[in-house]
């Protein structure tokens, strides 16, 4: 039996006359990998922002492990066990990669921000380097964040979110801005880390190949509403999803790959 970790009931968000999200009812199970698709402005990021406390829903309820977390601040949501990454990596630009990770360790540790012991103690450095190693970015430990390639920034952003061993990880377009040839390597690394941690993963993605490869379930947003929710292949085959989101490009790719398989 699967346990529901996140549930939203009638979640809506309006900005004046504009409805960014309307009546979103979603459940996410423990350890589930959910891909979220939708064109720009479909309400995907608005949904993540509501769940993580950046936006307060206009209507509806958010339940995390059965507990109402609607309207909690980002800090409180993080402490309940939900972490997120961002479309544009949110890091500390003037600090090094290692310092970013050390700060994340310090803030997400149980003791939280002690002032007696140095942040750069050998114990902390070893832990942070171990975490960086897990994402293959330990070579960049002493590099200032502003000098990092986009893919490394994305990985660091996710690695920092994972420090607190969240039960649910929300990734907002983890591969956006990353070179095509690096996308799969990045997702492989992330998914390996997510699988290791046992966290449920909810990731927003525009690249249908990535969604097809990594998600076990797909939720499709269109115009602020959920228009499809189900196993990946089933959801991507949904006529509305094909028409409004996937478009002819993926359809063509799928047809081509089908033909190749038959041959």
């Amino acid at each position: 039996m699967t346990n529901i970790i996140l549930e939203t009931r009638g979640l809506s968000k309006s900005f004046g006359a504009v409805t960014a999200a309307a009546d979103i009812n979603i459940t996410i199970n423990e350890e589930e990998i959910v891909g979220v698709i939708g064109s720009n402005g479909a309400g995907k990021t608005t949904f993540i922002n509501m769940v993580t406390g950046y936006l307060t829903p206009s209507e509806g309820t958010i339940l995390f492990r059965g507990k109402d977390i609607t309207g909690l601040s980002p800090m409180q949501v993080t402490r309940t066990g939900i972490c997120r990454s961002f479309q544009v990596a949110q890091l500390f630009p003037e600090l090094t990669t290692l310092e970013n990770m050390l700060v994340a360790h310090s803030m997400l540790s149980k003791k939280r921000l002690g002032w007696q012991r140095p942040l750069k103690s050998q114990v902390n450095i070893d832990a942070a380097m171990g975490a960086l190693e897990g994402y293959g970015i330990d070579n960049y430990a002493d590099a200032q964040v502003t000098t990092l390639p986009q893919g490394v920034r994305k990985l660091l952003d996710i690695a920092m979110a994972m420090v607190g061993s969240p039960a649910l990880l929300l990734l907002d377009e983890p591969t956006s801005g990353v070179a095509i040839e690096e996308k799969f390597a990045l997702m492989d690394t992330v998914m390996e880390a997510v699988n290791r941690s046992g966290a449920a993963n909810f990731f927003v993605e525009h690249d249908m190949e990535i969604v097809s490869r990594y998600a076990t379930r797909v939720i499709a947003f269109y115009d602020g509403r959920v228009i499809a929710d189900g196993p990946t292949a089933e959801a991507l085959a949904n006529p509305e999803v094909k028409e409004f989101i996937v478009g002819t490009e993926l359809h063509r790719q799928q047809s081509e790959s089908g033909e190749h398989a038959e041959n």
Partner: protein
Amino acid sequence: MHRADKTPRNLCLALVVLLAAGIIMPNWLTFLATVSIAKGMVVVGLIVLMRTGLVSFGQGLYYCLGGYTVGIAGNYLGITDVVGILFLSVVVAGIVGAILGLLLCRYREIFFAMLTMAFSMILYGVLVKSDNLGSTDGFNVAHVSLFGWVPSSDGVSIVIYSLACMIAFLTAFFIHRYFQSGMGFAGDSIRENEIRVEYLGISPRRVIFYKYVLAAVVAAVGGSITALVAGHVDPEMAYWTTSGEFVFVALLGGTGHVAAAFIGAFLFELIRTVAFDLSPYTWQMILGITLLMVILFLPKGLWSLITAQRTGRG
């Protein structure tokens, strides 16, 4: 990979040198050095805030509170022991800082700067209107003692100087450790990306609140030392130009290290003294040009020269 921290050793050396120098220094230099240390204390607090991305134009509030606590304790409460007076200053500044900090931790950038200045100017206004506290003239503070021993009038300046050196050493040591800790780095993190800090489960407001109270307390100790060495307090201590001086010193020294505050404060006092001696009517211009040069050529302050030398870029 990471070099050993030599700051504690260097601070100990500086303390020994300063205490030894106190024996041979002429009175005018002892006074100048004590005032520099006192102002350096205020700037240390300002650096704590500036590393968090906040500039306070109102540290004069706590500088003045510290000074007036010395005066009121000695003249009205009969407390003359230096340690007791300093403790009282810390308590007063801590309480006022905690009350104002609750409001100020909600504000950033220019709003924070202007609000801090506003509170400082409120105190200035109250003191100017208070005849019992000497109005614009202020008043002289009572002769102090140290654990029951009352130093002579000639010897009091060296006692205060020695005490200031030791307090500055302890403050610098503590604040340096604080900068190296998770709480210290939280300031840099808030300055860099407040949203990320929230998503790491930390309340930036709470961190800023603690830092504001800390800055208030060290500023008050600085004000107390100034009052003890000058033997006089007046409302100018809370005036916005006094707070501006502290910002000037922070820019001059830089925010890279706790020692930069004291070096900056000493240089500031030295430049001002020399400039006033050379040109009594236009000394402010010399200070202005100095600040301009620092901003243009050393935007991270004089301490950046030392940092550049260490990293081999100098």
